[in-house]
């Protein structure tokens, strides 16, 4: 494989990893607070639809992003209500919300635009446009690093950079702030937080809200960055891959970046079966590449590669009085 091809695949990796990364970090907040969320997929989808619709109607991508976040937050709020307030089963709530999102996005888009459950294509300001990083043109002159900077790092939409920025931000928030300390504690032992005089419910709702925001960004990126508009089921299981990445990353922000980049790389590679064939002189079936994130996650879950220990209070509603 020549360097140009590699750069092209890495470039593609970064694009494809971004929604995974945002969703993965979203899940990280929720699960760190002890609320399991298999509804990432649904929230992303909802956000993608809201973004597509609002950006088209308003002509502004930022209005679209806000709408996307709002859409995702509605689902997050329902999940919070079900799993925090009413102490319901978090897994079932997540499954249910995924179904609701899958259906309601099509219903809404269809009723708004009558284009078979799509939103009309976005163009111009209704969509994120690539940003050239400074000196990207001139950087080509520098060997190796230069093209990498110009081809892979530069030329993405703003949300890609926001996604990358979210990684250190998440790490900092989680491990260097009061909020993070409490959040981690509430996911490990909510009673410790409660007896320390901090509201478990408020913390968990805050975490779920952050999940909503990040999933909103992930969905907005799908509709206005990666594509130009919303299409039926356009997230195509990315929420579940993000969930897999979260486990793969053992609920840690930097590992989440690694995991999502790896899974994004698989997706990018799956687009170029020709490269693999040329490289290894045999063809790996594309379905095998598609399934790779899931297979790897199962391997990690099985404890063959380190142990993935979820937050201890995860999945359990906090009940003081039986």
């Amino acid at each position, binding site marked *: 494989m020549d360097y140009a091809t590699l750069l092209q695949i890495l470039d593609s990796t970064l694009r494809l990893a971004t929604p995974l990364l945002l969703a993965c970090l979203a899940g990280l907040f929720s699960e760190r607070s002890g609320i399991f969320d298999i509804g990432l997929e649904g929230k992303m989808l909802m956000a993608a639809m809201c973004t597509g619709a609002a950006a088209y109607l308003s002509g502004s991508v930022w209005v679209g992003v806000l709408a996307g976040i709002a859409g995702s937050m509605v689902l997050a709020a329902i999940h919070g209500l079900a799993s925090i307030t009413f102490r319901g089963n978090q897994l079932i709530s997540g499954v249910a919300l995924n179904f609701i999102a899958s259906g309601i996005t099509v219903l809404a888009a269809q009723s708004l635009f009558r284009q078979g459950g799509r939103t009309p294509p976005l163009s111009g300001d209704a969509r994120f446009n690539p940003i050239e990083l400074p000196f990207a043109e001139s950087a080509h002159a520098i060997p190796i690093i230069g093209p990498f900077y110009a081809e892979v790092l530069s030329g993405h939409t703003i949300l890609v950079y926001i996604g990358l920025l979210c990684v250190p931000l998440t790490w900092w928030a989680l491990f260097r*702030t009061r909020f993070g300390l409490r959040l981690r*504690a509430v996911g490990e032992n909510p009673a410790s937080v409660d007896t320390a005089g901090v509201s478990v419910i408020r913390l968990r709702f805050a975490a779920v809200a952050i999940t909503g925001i990040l999933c909103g960004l992930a969905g907005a990126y799908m509709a206005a960055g990666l594509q130009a508009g919303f299409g039926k089921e356009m997230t195509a299981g990315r929420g579940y891959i993000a969930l897999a990445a979260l486990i793969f990353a053992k609920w840690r922000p930097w590992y989440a970046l690694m995991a999502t980049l790896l899974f994004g790389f698989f997706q990018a590679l799956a687009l170029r079966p020709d490269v693999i064939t040329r490289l290894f002189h045999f063809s790996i079936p594309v379905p095998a590449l598609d399934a790779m994130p899931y297979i790897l996650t199962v391997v990690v879950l099985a404890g063959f590669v380190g142990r993935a220990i979820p937050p201890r209070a995860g999945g359990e509603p906090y009940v003081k009085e039986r």
Partner: protein
Amino acid sequence: MAATGTTSGRQDTAAPEGKAPAIELRGVSKAFGPVQANKDISIRVMPGTIHGIIGENGAGKSTLMSILYGFYKADAGEIFINGQKTDIPDSQAAIRAGIGMVFQHFKLVQNFTVLENVILGAEDGALLRPSLAKARRVLKELAKEYGLDVDPDEVIEELSVGHQQRVEILKALYRHADILILDEPTGVLTPDEADHLFRILRGLKEQGKTIILITHKLREIMEITDTVSVMRRGEMTATVKTAETDPEQLAELMVGRKVLLNVPKGPANPGRVILEVENLRVVDEDKVERVKGISFTIREGEIFGIAGVAGNGQSELLAVLGGIMPATGSIRLNGKDLDLTGRHSDGQSRRARGIAHVPEDRQHLGMIMDFTAWENMAFGYHNDPAYQKNALLMNNAAILEDSQGKMERFDVRPPIPTLAAKNFSGGNQQKIILAREIERNPDLLLVGQPTRGVDIGAIEFIHKRIVELRDAGKAVLLVSVELAEIMSLSDRIAVMFDGRIMGERMPEDTDERALGLLMAGVGGEGA
């Protein structure tokens, strides 16, 4: 009922100098669904004193303290702190009012460091770094002042229980608690650790702090408290000055009657050896060695009692014999080895070899609360050929009929086998389990805490049945934290401490005092 006029009279004498009490509760009530955990409770604690609270399991002690700490909300009642009426809707308010609490079950984040646990909820700002630095400094001072040494950077799960408790105390002190509540702090401690704790508590008292200490142990009450309150069935039955009372009186107040548990039983006729345990070691899931090489034998027609403070390896011993936990060493039943780790180390195999097991925790181990009584009667014996219709199907009718008989013979009330287990009272649940296990006519009966939370009538009945089984020539291994029960029921007594048997005594050659010393790890030949 038991709250007499004299007890309330005594209560008023608790404020001689006219100083406002540090804590005063008036008419506090709390119900959990149908369970009335606290009924119209009033209590006063004077500043700078150590106040004890005693009461049987489930008397409502923890609930009352949790209300004071804002963990639960009372249904009725008022709280006064230093004479001021104070609302305590949550723990934050309690902390603000200067109250700190060390719960019976610690509220620590296992994978956080000591420092992180200490600052949790009491951070100084949005960023952690300054808070951590400050806490490190304060902790050092506190360590010096009260002898509360603990490495601030150690992760909680690496610490011993005693050290974890210190962290809890530090947490309270870090929050400037003037009133410290400790819920059964010594239940999990070694005698050394307990002594150390008491020294700390005395130090705190000298600094003018008020301490409330919940315990089951009369000895501790007598040793350290200034005043003591007694709770029974959700009610406060008395508050007295420690100096003016004695253990017998407290015990009577606690149980509501003279405690004289004397089971009518004839002398034992020990026959051949049924059970031989040799050098048994048990390591639990957290890789902690719970039983550290014990050996003993039980003969037919003999009740072998194991006394000890809860958490000294008795539960694990029962679990191993009952096939719930693996172990190393050797156990022989009727001369044949029991499998301790392999395929035949499960409960089914134990039952097949003639071991019946009445577990300590009846609600979580002994039965399935959502199952009916008759389903529970087959629990563990569901493979019994008598319960099968054919190779595939169970004979539910047979189980039902069998259960009906057992319930009647054991006086389970109501004797309705189709009722769900959760709808029986605790005592009757216990009878269902006993009926199931004893009527199997086992060679060896394991019983853990047979009368925990059971009323007097039922206690006598249960004791009678256990003795009957002995008299039928069976072996019984009895584990109980109630010394009185051990004393009156056992034909031979062993005391466990820290995973070892401290010594064996004949009941007629010993008394509660001597056993108590062994339970505390003092003396004995096993240490």
